[in-house]
């Protein structure tokens, strides 16, 4: 049940927030260097440069956007893991109680692990 709810929540999250971010990114790229720098400054701000005293609202938005970006990546990997589980079930496999239960436990854990691995590779390179 949890894996089904997660599949729907992450899928719709990706449809709105994920595709919104994708279009913002592509639109900024197509609009030139200044627009791209503005995009990067909003979605992946340098947290140490935030001016909380004079710009509390934009600082908060930048912090939230960072969490949203990480959340979108988690949504993708979780949706991917439960989606692959759907493919297995679609071909008629994995309906035995034990196997089915194991898959429903592995899918969300795999989503978290892949998210952590992606950000580790990106930030520690």
């Amino acid at each position, binding site marked *: 049940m949890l894996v089904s709810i997660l599949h*729907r929540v992450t*899928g*719709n999250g*990706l*449809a709105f927030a*994920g*595709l919104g971010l*994708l*279009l913002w990114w*592509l*639109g900024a*790229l*197509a609009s*030139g*260097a200044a627009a*791209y*720098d503005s995009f*990067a400054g909003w979605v992946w701000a340098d947290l140490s440069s935030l001016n909380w005293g004079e710009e509390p609202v934009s600082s908060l938005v930048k912090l939230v956007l960072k969490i949203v970006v990480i959340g979108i990546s988690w949504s*993708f990997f979780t949706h*991917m893991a439960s*989606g*692959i589980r*759907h*493919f297995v079930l*679609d071909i008629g496999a994995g309906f035995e109680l034990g196997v089915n239960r194991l898959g429903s436990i592995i899918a969300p854990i795999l989503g978290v692990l892949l998210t952590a691995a*992606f950000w580790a*590779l*990106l930030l520690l*390179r």
Partner: protein
Amino acid sequence: MGNGTSIGRVRGLGSAKGGSHHWLLQRFTAIGNLLLVLWLLASILMLPNLAYATVVEWLSAPIPATAMILLVISTFWHARMGVQVMIEDYVHEHANKFASIAALNLAAFAGAAFGVFCVVRLALGAN
């Protein structure tokens, strides 16, 4: 068609007819998303940095531009079908359901068109 019990109203109507097409396309676009988004994430990891010049140089080349256009089409198509299922599950009133799905279709096609246009603009050197 009867107008009494629930079963009486649907008995003899047969299947919904159009469902398998939606179901299959959801799977086809899912396979496309799996390959294309993993390609995008791997590309992001392999770029030396994510500065404007680096990303534009990468995305302007023929193969990344083609893959990105396919990614936009596949993800928007898949999202349109997935959000439609959610609307059908939670919006029961006919007029609201029609309006929601109409708005969804407008947004999905507009979003995909914008995404494809941005990549084409970059790839054809307008930067």
